């Protein structure tokens, strides 16, 4: 039993490293930072100026929301692409054809993307605090880090879901990209969820991230643990559901591909 667990753990870490390293052969620290922060940073500036033009007076709201979405977007697209890549490199059938336990293989793909997303978001906050003079004095840092970490984990569930889609269709990542862009409307990144039409609000609360971002905003406004606890609990619950659904999808598609032989078709 212990041996099995140890083996699973080893497999998990190995899988995690392989999956991450296989995708990013980053050669310089500049390459790392620019590839992670470049796009979100300029997208954020774009939204800020859009806001400025229409008379939206709270650019900090946009800054915070966009930084909080970085780990989510990172771990989501990381996991999706990790699975999609293996399909196109043709390594997926080796992995799935092996007798290795499925759960570590499956979860292993997300570990480094989650860590990566977490680190990028913290970096993003540091940069944003410098540029936009975020007032950090009253903030409980432990709680903020917790929120960011949680956001990275819960969004990996969405990653698995889209990763499974990219197993069925080689264009899964287009769906992901489209969906990712929709997050800029739905989860309260640029404006409060409350200002959405009510149908969209329902969708928003069915997604991970919405509550987590609200909680992080409260923390940044100086709120205490009691204020954010229900939000975090909700975030964990929704996130867990998505991870579970993602895992089931993965297994289902694995089974299906055994009969249809579509696993490595590109």
């Amino acid at each position, binding site marked *: 039993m212990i041996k099995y667990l140890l083996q699973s753990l080893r497999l998990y870490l190995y899988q995690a490293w392989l999956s991450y390293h296989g995708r990013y052969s980053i*050669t310089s620290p500049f*390459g790392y930072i*620019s*590839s992670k922060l*470049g*796009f979100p940073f*300029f*997208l954020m*500036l*774009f*939204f800020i*100026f*859009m*806001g*400025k*033009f*229409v*008379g*939206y*007076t709270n650019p900090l709201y946009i800054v915070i929301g966009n930084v909080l979405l970085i780990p989510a977007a990172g771990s989501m697209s990381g996991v999706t692409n990790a699975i999609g890549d293996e399909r*196109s490199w043709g390594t997926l059938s080796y992995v799935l054809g092996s007798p290795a336990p499925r759960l570590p293989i499956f979860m292993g793909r997300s570990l480094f993307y989650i860590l990566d997303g977490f680190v990028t978001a913290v970096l993003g906050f540091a940069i944003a605090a410098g540029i936009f003079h975020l007032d950090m004095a009253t903030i409980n840092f432990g709680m903020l880090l917790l929120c960011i970490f949680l956001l990275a984990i819960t969004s990996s569930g969405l990653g698995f879901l889209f990763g499974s889609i990219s197993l069925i269709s080689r*264009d899964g990542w*287009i*769906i992901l*990209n*489209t969906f990712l*862009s*929709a997050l*800029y*409307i739905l989860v309260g990144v*640029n*404006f*409060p969820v409350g*200002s*959405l039409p009510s149908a969209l609000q329902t969708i928003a609360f069915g997604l991970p991230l919405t509550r987590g971002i609200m909680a992080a905003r409260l923390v940044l406004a100086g709120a205490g643990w009691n204020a954010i606890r229900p939000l975090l609990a909700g975030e964990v619950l929704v996130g867990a559901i998505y991870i579970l659904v993602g895992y089931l999808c993965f297994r289902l598609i694995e089974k299906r591909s055994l009969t249809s032989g579509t696993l490595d078709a590109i």
Partner: protein
Amino acid sequence: MKALRWGLIKQQMLVTLRVRALHVLSLGLFVIQPAVFTAVGMLLSHAAGNAMPDLVYTVIGGGIMGLWSGLVFSSTYDITGDRYYGTLELIVGSPTSLTTIEAIRTLINVLTGLFSLGLAFVAALAIFGYSLQGVNFWGAGISLLLLLFSMWCIGVFLANFLAWSRLSGSFVDFLEMPIAFLCGFMYPIRVLPGWLQTLSGVIPIRWALQAMNESLLGNRDLPFLLTHWAMAVGISLVFLAITGWLQARVHDSIRLSGELSSI
């Protein structure tokens, strides 16, 4: 010009369309993503307490975003696809130069992106009640042509850069939003700080777009339009010249590193 044979253009169009564009999912790229940008603009405007969003910048601007991201995305996809399929070295090894192929592909990509812009325009007219009254049609028309031309020049430049190395893909990623935000795709340039306005002057798209937006808003000031058009054309030509100069170097460099066939 002999290089731009119609047969080649036609074949390239067929291949591009079949390989990529005629796919339900390209709706995401050309319809949904621009719509999301428009929606963000409208909701921001709503949250700021405005009754009506700005139709030119927020709705038609969404179409400009679609045109531009479509172009960047397709150029990246074309060349990484060719690396991935192993066709890049077959194209380079043929008597037709890679630059010719890229010029044709970029043209196709710009024209495909026009779909986004058209859709946004129709949406502005049909859904949001955009009125054509007072629009400077000739100004907008000429500006649109120049906008497409400058996008094409930038696109050819990017495609060349992308062919250079596998890694340039991440730099182009890095360029997509900066250009969108510097050129004021969904807001007038004047909301940018002064130094950014100056900086944006080196991008030809900015001049053509500004002329187009102003014309849509009814500007008929000929000297204003003429200077903007001249800037758009002039800077585009500079980019073309740089591309021509780069092209030979890129061609040598990819043959030196063996990066042609690696994925």
